[in-house]
């Protein structure tokens, strides 16, 4: 059997029934998007060939970075387009089913759950926020204003040369720790403020510099599920925070709206 189904996402049947998908890009650039309805829901798929998306082929392809990059972006573009057309439970890159029968089985098992989830997600958007900090300013602030540090400095100035060296090192370490604490409390506060505007939040991994390619530390990485009506308020709160934090090295990046990847993850029971 040569035909597999690449699953992009699940939508409510009513929302996609009369929509036109034939002009849309697909992951293989050959076959068209198909909508397979089941009960209240509909799966948005496109057929792919075993020769390109079979398990063994994928094992090789997923190690070819240009292939991963190209297809991951394509997946992203397609999902962005679908998201504009209907409320969507987005699937992750390379969610592939072996046959239509297999898809139907899956839909049969989860249709009710999915329909409820889609109702819940309707009118909501996912926004991602990354908070960066250039620790220079905070370091200065801590070094100059922290009461313990002033005291410690005076103590050190009375010590012998060798002792001074060691104690200064220790002090630098202490300052770094204080900076991290400052960063954490800033992030916690701002996250709490934003959470009030959101339906749900999903904390994500904080990446190190080799991943971000930035000079600043990434201090916070989180997805927010926001009611469309609250989005403007949320964004202006981000703008305000950006302006206020600039002088202390803060920089907030917000991206979106994304397909709601972080708020429609399949539960364990759904997977099995």
């Amino acid at each position, binding site marked *: 059997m040569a035909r597999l189904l690449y*699953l992009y996402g699940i939508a409510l049947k009513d929302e996609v029934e009369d929509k036109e998908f034939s002009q849309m890009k697909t992951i293989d650039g050959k076959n068209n998007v198909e909508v397979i309805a089941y009960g209240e829901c509909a799966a948005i798929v496109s057929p792919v060939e075993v020769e390109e998306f079979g*398990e063994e082929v994928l094992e090789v392809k997923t190690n070819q*970075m240009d292939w991963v*990059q190209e297809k991951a972006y394509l997946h992203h573009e397609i999902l962005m387009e679908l998201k504009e057309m209907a409320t969507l439970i987005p699937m*992750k*890159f*390379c969610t592939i089913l072996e046959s239509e029968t297999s898809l139907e089985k899956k839909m049969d098992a989860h249709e009710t759950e999915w329909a409820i989830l889609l109702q819940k997600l309707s009118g909501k958007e996912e926004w991602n926020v990354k908070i960066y900090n250039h620790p220079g300013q905070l370091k200065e602030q801590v070094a100059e204003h922290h009461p313990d540090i002033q005291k410690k400095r005076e103590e050190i100035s009375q010590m012998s040369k060798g002792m001074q060296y060691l104690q200064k090192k220790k002090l630098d370490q202490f300052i770094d720790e204080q900076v991290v604490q400052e960063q954490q409390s800033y992030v916690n506060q701002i996250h709490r403020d934003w959470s009030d505007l959101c339906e749900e939040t999903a904390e994500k*991994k904080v990446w190190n510099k080799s991943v971000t390619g930035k000079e600043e530390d990434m201090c916070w990485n989180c997805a927010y599920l926001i009611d469309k009506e609250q989005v403007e308020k949320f964004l202006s709160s981000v703008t305000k925070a950006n302006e206020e934090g600039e002088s202390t090295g803060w920089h907030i990046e917000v*991206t979106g709206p*994304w397909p709601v990847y972080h708020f429609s993850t399949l539960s364990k029971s759904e997977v099995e």
Partner: protein
Amino acid sequence: MSIEHPTQSNSIVDVLETVLDKGVVIAGDIRVGLADVELLTIKIRLIVASVDKAKEIGMDWWETDPYLNSKAAESNTEALEKENEQLQKRIEQLEKKMNQTYER
């Protein structure tokens, strides 16, 4: 404030961390093992960065390097063959002329 809509050039991390599943894609029937997002991002970024940067500073030598570029290699060989042919012809003509001179 920058509302960045994810595009090809500026948000490799953003796109990958959202569309890639952690490790293995579990929702489908086909098992797809992916390296973790961190590693993939670093790898992809290295490719993008090295190609762009190299071009930026005029290091596009591989486009004409016969070992790296077969097209360049082909056109190179062709040119050499042509030159060879022309030189051969000139030698032949010179030899002919020499022979004629001696025979006189």
